[in-house]
Every structure is written in structure tokens, then in C-alpha cells.
């Protein structure tokens, strides 16, 4: 395991890659904030687990992947879907429970998937998707393909059996899996110190004989560089690995009602929000003169327009027809 401090690596990265990372993060941020407003306004049913704060992880990892690389996600999965290239119209339509949604209104926020871009689904069961990524990696190897698989999960999920069984299985079968733990310090509302004795989830990788890296999850460039190394390694047939990204959830576990004290201190929240990954990357890009403030602003305004159109599409889409309720219970 190595601590990675890639503070100067920004100059080593192609400008296009930096803009790509920035754009992916902005798309996630705005998608989530608008979703939050829709929920708050009572326009959207169900649960909402916002990804805001953790954008650098999804953006950094996804920028290293190809469309045929498979990811699995969590209940907090919008960010992964957006970063993997999902269509925002179908995502919002699903949040609204519409027939045009990714799941035709049968899944909702926690089940967005799009196999055409290698998104094997968000999952409402903590740890539930991790073995699927191992299976996707197995299928790729079986078919002689060089794609990799990336299960995303939180610190809390590393206490569930599915994580441990999957890690051991991927290791013993030498499969191209990069286990990406987004350690946001909380399992729902329980702080890490009360749900595991280790300071680093990465230490768990040693138990399965696989290498691990710890990376600053508020630094998209650092995540990109570290994930890139591990993806390359997996693609070259060198087996699975674990990447722990230390990050933070700006909203609550669920919903948009704000940052609920006392389970987190205001000081802690402020400290992390000052490290906001999007502002940080933007600052570094303008400092390094690889982007102008105007260029970055155009990313925000362009994304706002795209999102407004996507929400309109979703709201104007038809509801599912109850007569079709039984569609897709079985493959016929």
C-alpha cells in the first residue's frame, strides 16, 4: 500500500483529461442538486441518497475506464452512472418513476443501470453488487476479453460478508477487479471509528493477498492516476486490487434536509466542504493556465441547460401502464 500525493501531477496530465474530469464532476454535482430540489419540492417519490461531495472518486475512476469495462454501484449510485456516461434524461425519468426511465419506472433511484455503457446497476442492498462485478470480470476473462470490472462501495460495506467473499474470490481466481471503496467516514450515521477498528479500509486487502492504494478522494487527478495504475495492472492480467478513496458526503445519508448535527460536527463538515473537489480542480486548472474561468463557467451553464431539458423530458414522459406491471418479472 502506498500513500499517493499527486499534487503536481496536474501538469503531467493532458488538458483534455483535466477538462473531462471537471466536466464529469460538474455533471454529477448539478444532477444531484437538481434531484434534491425536486425531492424537496415534493415532485419526486421515494428515497434519495445524494452523491454530492464524492464526485472526484466517480470522475477519477471512470475516466480510466472503457465503455466495455463494467461497474457496479450502490444505493448512492447516481454519480457513478453519470460519470460512466448515462443519459441524464433516462436517469431523471427513472427518478420520477416514468416509463421512459432506465428501469421503466420499476427500479427508481437505487437501481439505475445501462449495460450499453457497462453500468451493471446500482444496488439497494449494501454489498449486493460487489459479487456481480466479480462475475462480470469472470465472464470477460472466460470470453478472452481484456475488460475489467469495478465494484464501488462505501466504508460501511466492507463490514459485510459479500465484500469479503468477493475480495477473496477475485484474488484466488486472479480476476481483473478493482475494488473501489469510497470511504466517506460514515456507515449511514455511524462513524467509521465505531464500525471498524482499522483506520484504513485498504488494510483489509492484505487479508486477501491483493495490493491496495489509498488516495485523496477529494482530488480527481489523484484518483485518476491511482485508478489508472490499478486498471492497467488488472488489464494486464495481474489480478485484483483495492483502491480506498478518502472522501466526504456533503448531504445526509438520505434526503436533502441538510447536514444534521450532532452525528457530524459543523467543524468537520466545514473542513471537508472547504476541500470541495470541483472548486479545487477548477482552481488548479486556472492556476496552471490549462483552463480559463470562462471555460469552466461554460461547463456549468451548458450542464444546467442539459439538465433542465432532461428534467422536462422526464416530467413530460408517460407513467408506466399498470396493465404492463408484470413485464420483465421473467424473461420470456
Amino acid at each position, binding site marked *: 500500500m502506498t500513500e499517493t500525493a499527486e499534487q503536481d501531477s496536474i501538469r503531467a496530465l493532458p488538458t483534455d483529461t483535466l477538462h473531462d474530469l471537471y466536466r464529469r464532476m460538474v455533471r454529477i454535482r448539478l444532477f444531484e442538486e437538481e434531484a434534491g430540489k425536486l425531492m424537496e419540492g415534493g415532485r419526486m417519490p421515494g428515497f434519495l441518497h445524494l452523491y454530492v461531495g464524492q464526485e472526484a472518486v466517480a470522475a477519477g475512476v471512470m475516466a480510466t475506464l472503457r465503455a466495455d469495462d463494467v461497474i457496479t454501484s450502490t444505493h448512492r449510485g447516481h454519480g457513478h452512472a453519470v460519470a460512466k456516461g448515462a443519459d441524464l434524461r433516462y436517469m431523471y425519468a427513472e427518478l420520477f418513476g416514468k416509463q421512459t426511465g*432506465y428501469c421503466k419506472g420499476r427500479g427508481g433511484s437505487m437501481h439505475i443501470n445501462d449495460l450499453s455503457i457497462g453500468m451493471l446497476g446500482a444496488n439497494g442492498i449494501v454489498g449486493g453488487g460487489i459479487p456481480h462485478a466479480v462475475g462480470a470480470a469472470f465472464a470477460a476473462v472466460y470470453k478472452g476479453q481484456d475488460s475489467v470490472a469495478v465494484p464501488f462501495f462505501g466504508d460501511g460495506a466492507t463490514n459485510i460478508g459479500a465484500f469479503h467473499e468477493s475480495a477473496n474470490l477475485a484474488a484466488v481466481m486472479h480476476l481483473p477487479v478493482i475494488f473501489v471503496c469510497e470511504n466517506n467516514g460514515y456507515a449511514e450515521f455511524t462513524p467509521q471509528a465505531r464500525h471498524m477498528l482499522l483506520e484504513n479500509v485498504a488494510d483489509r486487502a492484505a487479508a486477501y493477498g491483493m495490493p491496495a492504494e489509498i488516495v485523496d478522494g477529494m482530488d480527481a487527478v489523484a484518483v485518476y492516476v491511482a485508478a489508472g495504475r490499478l486498471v492497467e495492472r488488472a488489464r494486464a492480467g495481474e489480478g485484483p486490487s483495492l483502491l480506498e478513496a478518502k472522501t466526504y458526503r456533503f448531504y445526509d445519508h438520505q434526503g436533502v434536509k441538510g447536514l444534521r448535527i450532532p452525528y457530524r460536527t459543523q467543524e468537520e463538515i466545514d473542513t471537508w466542504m472547504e476541500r470541495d473537489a470541483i472548486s479545487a480542480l477548477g482552481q488548479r486548472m486556472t492556476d496552471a493556465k490549462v483552463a480559463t474561468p470562462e471555460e469552466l463557467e461554460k461547463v456549468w451553464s451548458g450542464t444546467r441547460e442539459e439538465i433542465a431539458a432532461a428534467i422536462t423530458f422526464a416530467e413530460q414522459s408517460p407513467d408506466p401502464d399498470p396493465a404492463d406491471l408484470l413485464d420483465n418479472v421473467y424473461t420470456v
Partner: protein
Amino acid sequence: MREITYVKAFTESLMQLMAEDEDVVVIGEDVAHYGGVFHAFDGLLKAYGEKRVIDTPISEMGFIGMGVGAAARGLRPVCDLMFLDFIGVCLDQLYNQAAKLKFMFGGDVSVPLTLTTAGGAGLSAGPQHSQSLEAWLAHVPGLKVALPSSPHDVKGLMVAAVRDDNPTVVVLNKRMLGVKGPVPEEIYEIPLGQAATVRPGRDATVIAVGRMVVEAVTAAEELAGSGTEVEVIDVRTVQPLDSATILDSVRRTNRALVVHEAVTFGGIGAEIASQIQEEAFDYLDAPVLRLGAPFSPVPFSPVLERAYIPDSNRIAAGVRRLLERSGG
């Protein structure tokens, strides 16, 4: 026709399925080098190699979940859960994942996963290696569940299960493994959801699940000696359930007894009895009877276990009760 054992018919189905479709892989604990604890996988490793016949760590949630992911990516995995009793350690991957991906992902994904396992009592295997839990599985939309009752059916149902694009659980009965019967050599399919009328009769219908079919046929033969003709239906699959065949029979015989090894309370017999009263009430000359195990874990002692599992004598007694009740 040549006769082979139930377990050999199972092995033969996999040999032939793997020959016809290279996307079929077998994954489980000790299935490759050892051939499975019941030797149900003997010879597969030699025939198809380590790439397609895979020993796993003792990680049912891990390797069944891996099967789900591999199935979603185009393979046709057969995962083996050694004993049905072990389902608790991997159930999430079966009922929340395999069963629901198709539906909750809007139809984008199919999960052609077959889970093979062994259920049933009668070998003094004790409370954690003898259970019949098919009703749990039948309750989950998205799953299919087969319980073959003969060497012929185990092969045909396995072929159907593996070719099916839905997650399907095939529950082998441990006491049937060494039982011989006629099995065609060529590959053939028994459609999932098609019950078999294994013995025709006019006086009462016995609807049986799994090995209870054998006991029901024995009971029917005994009752025939006293002039009572019992129709025996093998449900073959409890999900989907072939209600039409059951109802058609009961409308002719006017009496029904459902028998399974699982505990009576909340068993699949409750579902079948309920369907009969909803759909064929006016044809009934007696209340539908259920015969299952008492509401207790499966006991170890051979004496207790014999008392626990329904058998031909109890089935015959049940049919007599039906006839007495209706003045037949």
C-alpha cells in the same frame, strides 16, 4: 430403455448441456476435482477442464453472486449450493439480486443462472442438512423452482433449467440419488411449469412434490387393491405451478390431497389447496387435505425422522379420510 441412477442422469444432463453450449460453466464447492459431495459432477472436470468446472472457496454468497454477474454478462452459469439448508448464507444474491435484476433494471438484463442443490430428509443428516424449503423460493417473483422426482425428470428439468433465461433452482432429493430409472440417452427438455399425471385415477387426486411422488404412487397402488383409483400428479415445478393440470384433475376426482416433505404450515400445499378451493370449490366432495411434516426441525434419530417424513401409509390414510368425509 436403459436405466441409470438419478445422480447419473443429473451428471449426464450437464455433460450434454456443456457440449451444446460453451457458455455453460459449473461453479461450486468441490465440484471440480472431487466431483461434488454427492458425485453429481463426476467426470465434468476431465471432460471440460478447469476453465469451465470451477472449485470455489466456501463462499456461497460470493460465488452465487459471481454467477449472477457472469449470467448478466452472457454466460450460463450452473452454481451448486451443496445443501438447500445453506441457502441462508447466500439468499440475498438469489432473491434480491438474481430474481429481481430483470425487473428492476427495466428488462435490460437477463440472469440465466441455474442453482443446483440437494434437499429433503431421510438420511439422518440432522436439522441443518435435511430441509425442504421450496415454498420460500416459490414465493419470490422472478425465480423458478424445480423438484425432480425421478431420473427421467432430473435430466429433463435440468436441461430446461439451464436453457431457461431466468434464475432457476433445481432441488435434487438426496434419497433419490441412487434410485434407478429409464432415461433417454439423447438430450431432452421437460418444460418448467408442466406437471405430470404419473398415474391416472377417478376417485381422488394426490398432488405430490419431489420424492413424495414415489410415496404417492406406492399409496395409490395399495389403494387400488381395495378398489380406490387415485390420480397422482407430480407438480415437477412449484414455480411456475401448473395449476391447470391440478384443477382439471380435481374437477374430475372431486377430492384432493397435497403432500410434500416440507412442514405443512405455510408449505406449497397451502397455496395449492387455496387455489383449488378458489377455482374448483363447487367440484369438491371434501375439504382439500394437506400432508407434510410436523412443525419441527428435521430430527436426527432414524426413529424420529421416520415419524417425521410423510410416507405412503400416511398418504393412503389421507386418501381414505377424504373418501370417508365425502361418503365415497
